[in-house]
Every structure is written in C-alpha cells, then in structure tokens.
C-alpha cells in the first residue's frame, strides 16, 4: 500500500480493484444534469452511463431531491489509457416549492436518467376565461 507503484510493476497485470487502491480514488462523481421546466413539471435529465437500473435511487427528503446510482466496474485488465474509478453517481438539488412530491417519477434509458417533478395544481399557471356580456 505504501509503495503501490512498485508493487504494481512487480505483479504485472492486476485487477482494476487491486490497482485502484494505489491510485487516488474519486469514488463518487456528480453527473452532468439538464433542468427543464414547462407548465406541468420540472424535468431533470442526468447522464449516468454504466448505472444499472436496479442501482438507481431517486429520493426526496426535506425538500431535497437526491439521485444516486452505482456504476459497474469496467472490464478487468491492464489499463492502457483513460480509466475511471468512480463507483457511484451522486447529486442532490433543492426541490422547487409547489412540487407534487407524491407524483415524482423517474425512468432510465441508455444511461440517461429522467426525473419528472410534477407541479401541484396550486402553482400551475391557469388561464382565466373571460366572460363577455351578451
């Protein structure tokens, strides 16, 4: 552990997990996020490549939205270029007031997570019909 590099050289090919111990590990990362809004909802879109669907957790607690997901390790082998060590995505936001938290829904497709935060009727814009005198 104290002299990781030489251990690594001595042993030659090691698994990612073993080698990861010798490197600075960023075990979590903040996924890039888009936030959109229309009259009906606020839509949060996050890139979480490699996240298994059953590992994704979307949680609302005390007016905060938490997104976490675990990422599978890359293939075993000797790293030649690049490399990533994150094992978890994590991001959290303030939920806008007027969100109907009971109806928040989320879906995952091709490594992209979409979270729908519907607005409660009270904050939805309403067009008032104008009556005309006949």
């Amino acid at each position, binding site marked *: 552990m104290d002299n990781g590099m030489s251990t690594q050289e001595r042993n030659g090919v090691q698994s990612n997990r073993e080698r990861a111990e010798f490197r600075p590990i960023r075990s979590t990362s*903040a996924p890039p996020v888009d936030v959109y809004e229309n009259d009906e909802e606020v839509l949060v879109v996050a890139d979480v490549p490699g996240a298994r669907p059953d590992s994704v957790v979307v949680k609302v607690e005390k007016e905060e939205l938490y997104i976490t997901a675990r990422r599978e390790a890359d293939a075993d082998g000797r790293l030649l270029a690049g490399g990533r060590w994150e094992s978890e995505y994590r991001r959290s936001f303030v939920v806008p007031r007027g969100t109907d938290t009971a109806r928040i829904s989320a879906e995952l497709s091709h490594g992209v997570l979409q979270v729908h935060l519907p607005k409660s009727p009270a904050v939805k814009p309403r067009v008032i019909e104008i009556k005309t005198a006949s």
Partner: protein
Amino acid sequence: MLGYAFSDFERTFNEMDQLRQRLGRVFGDVDTREFSPDTTWPRTSVYETKDALVLVAEVPGLNEKDLEITLKEDVLTLAGERKLNVPDGYQVHRQERRPARFSRSFTVAHRLASEGLTAELKDGVLTVRLPKQPEEQPRKIQIKAG
C-alpha cells in the same frame, strides 16, 4: 381571510415572486460536489487483457445507430453524434449535458485476430473487444544428425 382580500392578494403575488426567484436558482446543488465538465466526450478507457484489447466508451443517450466503429489496419476509430434537443415546450434552467460530434482514433499496438471483434452497448456504455492474435506457439527445432 376574506376581510383582508387586498393584502392577501399582495401576499399571494409576493409568494409568486418568491417562487419565481426560487425557480430561478432552482436546483442549486445541495452539496458542494459540483459537476466539472470533462475535456473530451465521450470519456474513453482502453484495457488490455490476456487475450484481447478492450475499449470502453461512455455514450449515454446514444443508441447503435448513432455510433460507428471502424477498424482499418491498426487504427480503431469510434465516431458518432449526440444531439441534445430541448424537449418541446420546455424552458431551460440548466444545461450541463452537451451535444457532441466526435471521432476518436486509437492505434492498436497488437496483432489482432481477424475475427471475433465484438461491440456491445449497454446502459450507455459501449464496450469494444478486439481479440489478439494467438501468440505463436514456441517450436522445437529438430536437429538432424549428419
């Protein structure tokens, strides 16, 4: 409450302003872990295993049709495009994900087997396996006696 109709109105509008302000900074991150953009997209790693080279690229949101993989002599090229359109009728509060048109090439410093190259796209991660040419077996040379 009805007795204070006007001040209620005022308060209501104040609250709406507050809501608007709040929406303006909607999604201020709760924790300090700010997203920092990578310089290249897609993020890519190359691994070498006993019998193959493995290229792993993070391509969230792309499907097979958006990607093109070519191997020409010893150069592997991964190309594609990610379009990011604002969903219809939505306004944008924050846009950290980015559109990308990319082409990345990797020189392969191994002799590759001519067959068995595979590419798999799963959960937004592309994995390309390039099997190595099996090492030639050591051969024993018979010495003939004169």
